[in-house]
């Protein structure tokens, strides 16, 4: 009952016209980012952080959350209409989504995806409401050694899933940790790797690094003569699914919700894993599995539900334990920290009003997305007709403003340019970028918990294996890293992607 009261209080805050406006703007911007090829959710959210810095904490986080799940839906539109996923997590949707477009059912596909996303997102948010308190109390069991072990598990999962080579993924993770160490040592206060530059005492600006590594490097790696695709918005009449389509997608949406919610809770899992596994589930369990690949609604409704359920469920470990589950969530956590909010059990005790307002806004955001996306499909597709040079120029403009406004200095613009080149080099060497983002945020937390653990044990490294919870977690992490040696091969479909 207590929880419900607090949630109602959250709704009261989230329903003020400013916050509704922020949620609305966030959904709008998020969908645009999702639609635009090239600007992924990681760079997109990072790019828009500076816009929100001057808002109050609740408004700013509400907007960024809305951007975050807006991108999930925006990616669907291009997958269905163009056969090119705007986001990695919508990649699998192209198979049946584009097939439906060819059959003239594009509108129905988009509507079902929107409804599925709504259901998945809402169910996951309900989960967040009821899991937040109990999980937060469980948080007391998590001391420094357990916290460290938990982060090891998250990073090793991401490393194991990212890219084709685990060696390269580990390099990416180690680079992220090293970058996060620039600045004043968070424990003893000694400057590290600052090369005598006072500007670096506060560390390399997180936003500038992410915008550079993800956004700028993406633009730098555009191919020559990329053609603007021809798209036609589906007519309004075809937006409504038939009764059979509704009936067929119901079980798919239910399965997608389950898969997305479950995987979203696990640190290190990305939304693309959820959508892929949901597609696999449809292949196995759907009554119409023989039609998959030829334009079956299940192939759209399932994965799209799953990735949105995942996106919302992934906020649970962030809110309750302060652990970001995926690169995008890591960026979101960076924004929390910049607003002076430390995600974790303390969020509900220290800033419970803001925390519940954010949760309430997730419900509102899901409704907004449903209302926004279906009728506005025409608008979204027209964005795709904007010629590449104009898009490039506008995106560069936002990157420069974004980097400049972090500290109001051109230093961060140079940082962004430098990391853009680093990102380009990493892309060319086929090194996945996702582990780097996660470790960039986790770096200080990991280091602190490592050092606190060793202080508790007075220098004995066995502190990680002598305590039951951390021993199990470390064991899981080692298993994941060693899985290739043990011949646990990951599904082939998973080798391509993560969220980048």
């Amino acid at each position, binding site marked *: 009952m207590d929880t419900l009261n607090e949630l109602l209080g959250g709704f009261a805050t989230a329903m003020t016209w400013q916050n509704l406006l922020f949620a609305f703007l966030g959904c709008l911007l998020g969908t645009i980012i999702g639609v635009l090829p090239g600007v992924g959710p990681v760079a997109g959210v990072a790019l828009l952080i*500076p*816009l929100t*810095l*001057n808002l109050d904490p609740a408004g700013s986080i509400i907007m960024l959350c809305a951007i975050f799940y807006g991108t999930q839906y925006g990616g669907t539109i291009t997958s269905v209409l163009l056969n090119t996923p705007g986001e990695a997590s919508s990649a699998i949707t192209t198979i049946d989504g584009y097939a439906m477009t060819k059959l003239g059912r594009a509108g129905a596909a988009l509507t079902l995806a929107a409804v599925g996303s709504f259901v998945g997102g809402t169910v996951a948010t309900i989960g967040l409401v009821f899991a937040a308190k109990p999980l937060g109390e469980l948080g007391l069991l998590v001391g420094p050694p357990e916290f460290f072990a938990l982060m090891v598990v998250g990073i090793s999962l991401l490393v194991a899933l990212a890219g*084709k*080579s*685990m*060696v*390269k993924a*580990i*390099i990416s993770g*180690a*680079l992220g*940790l*090293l970058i996060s*160490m620039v600045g004043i*040592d968070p*424990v*003893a206060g*000694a400057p*590290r*790797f600052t090369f005598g530059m006072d500007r670096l005492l506060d560390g390399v600006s997180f936003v500038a690094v992410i915008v550079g590594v993800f956004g*700028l490097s993406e*633009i*730098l790696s*555009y*191919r020559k003569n990329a053609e603007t695709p021809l798209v036609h918005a589906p007519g309004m009449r075809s937006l409504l699914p038939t009764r059979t389509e509704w009936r067929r997608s119901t079980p798919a949406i239910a399965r997608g919700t389950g898969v997305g919610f479950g995987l979203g809770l696990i640190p290190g899992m990305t939304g693309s894993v959820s959508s892929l596994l949901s597609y696999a589930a449809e292949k196995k369990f759907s009554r119409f599995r023989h039609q998959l690949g030829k334009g079956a609604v299940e192939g759209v409704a399932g994965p799209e539900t799953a990735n949105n359920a995942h996106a919302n469920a992934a906020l649970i470990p962030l809110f309750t334990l302060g652990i970001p589950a995926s690169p995008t969530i890591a960026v979101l956590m960076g924004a929390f920290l910049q607003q002076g909010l430390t995600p974790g059990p303390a969020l509900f005790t220290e800033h419970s009003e803001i925390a519940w307002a954010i949760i309430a806004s997730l419900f509102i955001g899901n409704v907004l997305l449903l209302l926004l996306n279906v009728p506005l499909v025409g608008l979204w597709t027209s964005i795709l007709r904007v*010629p590449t*040079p*104009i898009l*490039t*120029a*506008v995106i560069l*403009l936002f990157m*420069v*403003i974004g980097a*400049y*406004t972090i500290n*109001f200095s*051109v230093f961060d*613009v*140079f940082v962004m*340019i430098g990391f*853009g*080149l680093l990102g*380009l080099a990493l892309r*060319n*060497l*086929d*090194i996945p970028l996702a582990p780097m983002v996660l470790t960039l945020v986790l770096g200080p937390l*990991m*280091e602190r918990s*490592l*050092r606190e653990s*060793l202080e508790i044990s*007075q*220098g004995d490294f066995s502190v990680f294996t002598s305590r039951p919870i951390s021993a199990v977690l470390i064991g899981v992490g080692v298993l994941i890293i060693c899985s*290739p*040696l043990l011949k646990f091969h990951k599904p082939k479909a998973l*080798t391509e992607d993560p969220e980048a």
Partner: protein
Amino acid sequence: MTTESLLTKPERAQRVAPSVLAGIGAFTAVGVYVLVSSVDLGLWTSLGPGPGLFPFAMGGVLVAMSALWLVQELRRPSEKAEGIDRGMVVSVVVSLVLLASVMDLLGFQLSMFLFLLYHLKLRGRRTWMTSVVIALAGSVGAFYAFNYGLNVALPVSAFTPLNLIGL
């Protein structure tokens, strides 16, 4: 996937791409630098774990992984990456560096206007009309939107005649 690449015999005698070698070399160099400087920072002090402990571990990981990568490459060189559009990279990076260098002097509006005009008109070959309208919106428009709408101050020019007219 690691074992696969370690265990599979080379199918064709290929050479490791120079860019890959350069990458491995760079990561090793960074790793060694971190290892050395973290020893200086102190791995362990009388007060407990020192500032160098965690960087030391990461430097070690970086060197070890670079070595493993080299072994993998020697056994089976990776396929050549798709080429990048060098002209594009140079023009974007150089224009950004120029923009960042002059932004404090010329002010946001003038420098951003020129930057956008370059990308839209000279590189993007848009019409004058489109280029100028977008460049104006992105420079003057953005300046006022941020300054008065969001209370975020973008830089004004350091030169007297320019900053007097609000640029």
